[in-house]
């Protein structure tokens, strides 16, 4: 990791989480809270008596995995704008500002997932991962997706003021559609066909398979999100290059 990115991460740690705050715990509580809520509803309707489906584990892993793109887009979006003053140091490049926020976010989401996963495992709500390699592959692919999107949106935020107004609505809808909270098997075949155009659904399936193992039918192709990410990151880097010319340091 470059010296500059490392320095930016240290700096960001203090500015974001402060010295006394427990801000980083949010990446831990958010999926925890949601998993609890769904489990509560599940139990209330007595689904657990009719089904052995590990609902808590299912929600937990999908949610935590989805945060890898949702939180990184949010963090990267204003990365350049918020730290524009630092570009006065010519060794600090716009991409460093995005990369440092991205890495910190991936670290904090991953840390939160490990912490929460350990607690759930101890409680017997989450199994030991069925296949670590799939779990890690999915984690990696989703982080990569988050990076591509983070770079893309940080470039777009400089190129156009309009993007910001649509971002929240877009993120909200995409959060529901992305595949983090439903499995491909749960939707009708006709819809599934279209849903599988979303790379995030493939990745979520890979991650779920890695944790839960063959308890249901999974629909994924590893090559699809890989190719998608490759194309997306190339477009993002190109747009960032274009956007860089537009950045004027005060």
């Amino acid at each position: 990791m470059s010296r500059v990115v490392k320095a930016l991460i240290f700096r960001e740690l203090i500015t974001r989480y402060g010295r006394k705050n427990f801000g980083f715990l949010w990446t831990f509580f958010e999926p925890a809270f949601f998993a609890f809520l769904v489990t509560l509803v599940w139990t209330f309707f007595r689904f657990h008596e009719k089904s052995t489906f590990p609902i808590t584990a299912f929600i937990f892993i999908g949610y935590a995995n989805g945060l890898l793109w949702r939180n990184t887009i949010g963090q990267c979006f204003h990365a350049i704008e918020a730290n524009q003053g630092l570009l006065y140091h010519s060794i600090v490049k716009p991409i460093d500002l995005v990369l440092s926020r991205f890495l910190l976010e991936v670290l904090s989401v991953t840390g939160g997932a490990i912490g929460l996963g350990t607690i759930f495992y101890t409680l017997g709500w989450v199994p030991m991962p069925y296949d670590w390699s799939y779990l890690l592959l999915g984690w990696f692919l989703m982080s990569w997706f988050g990076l591509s999107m983070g770079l893309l949106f940080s470039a777009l935020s400089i190129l156009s003021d309009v993007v910001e107004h649509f971002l929240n609505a877009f993120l909200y809808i995409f959060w529901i559609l992305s595949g983090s909270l439903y499995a491909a098997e749960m939707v009708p075949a006709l819809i599934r066909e279209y849903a599988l155009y979303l790379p995030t659904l493939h990745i979520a399936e890979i991650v779920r398979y890695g944790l839960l193992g063959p308890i249901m039918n999974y629909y994924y192709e590893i090559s699809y999100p890989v190719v998608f990410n490759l194309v997306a990151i190339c477009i993002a880097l190109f747009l960032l290059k274009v956007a860089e010319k537009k950045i004027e340091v005060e």
Partner: protein
Amino acid sequence: MEKFVKLENICKAFPLRIGVKYALKNINLTIKSEDKLGILGMNGSGKSTLIRIISGATKPTTGKVIKKMKVSWPLAFQGGFQGSLTGLDNLKFICRIYGANWKEKIDFVQDFAELGKYFYEPVKTYSSGMRARLAFALSLAIDFDCYLIDEIVAVGDQRFQKKSKVELFEKRADRSFVLSSHQPSYIKEHCNRFFVLSEGNLIEFESIDQAWQFYSKQ
């Protein structure tokens, strides 16, 4: 290896609502080690833009900058401060990005910026004078071959200004400087090459007096 900075055919244009403003027009300049450049220019003549292009903070519209020495950021720049960071945090950050050891620099910065206990408090609690002193001290904490000084170093009281002068021009007499100003006295005192930036053109003169003559006739 020879140390220098070379600007080749630098142009900088800013889009305006109506048309385009050419802030710099085809500038060629070589800064060698121990060169002390003084640039005279009126407000808005493009001095700051030129200095930012030399530092690398701003990209030229066309032309290129070849850097074969370590060039500072524009001195005493305060824009990089973040309110919740302390003076020490800022020192650590600067040292980390430039690859210096911050532990070795604490004494210098503490001594130079005269912040006392405030060095360990968030920058948002600082007075504007304290901020300026910290920014100045941080600029000097890192070792550069060429220092860029945009406008007179009018930081702090007279005593502090004197201290800054000693630190910059006496202790670093073997370095290069680019000093921009709209007054000749400072340039006369510290520089050995004299320029006027006028209507986007950079013109070199033999002496400060010639430069001043041209400048005051504008």
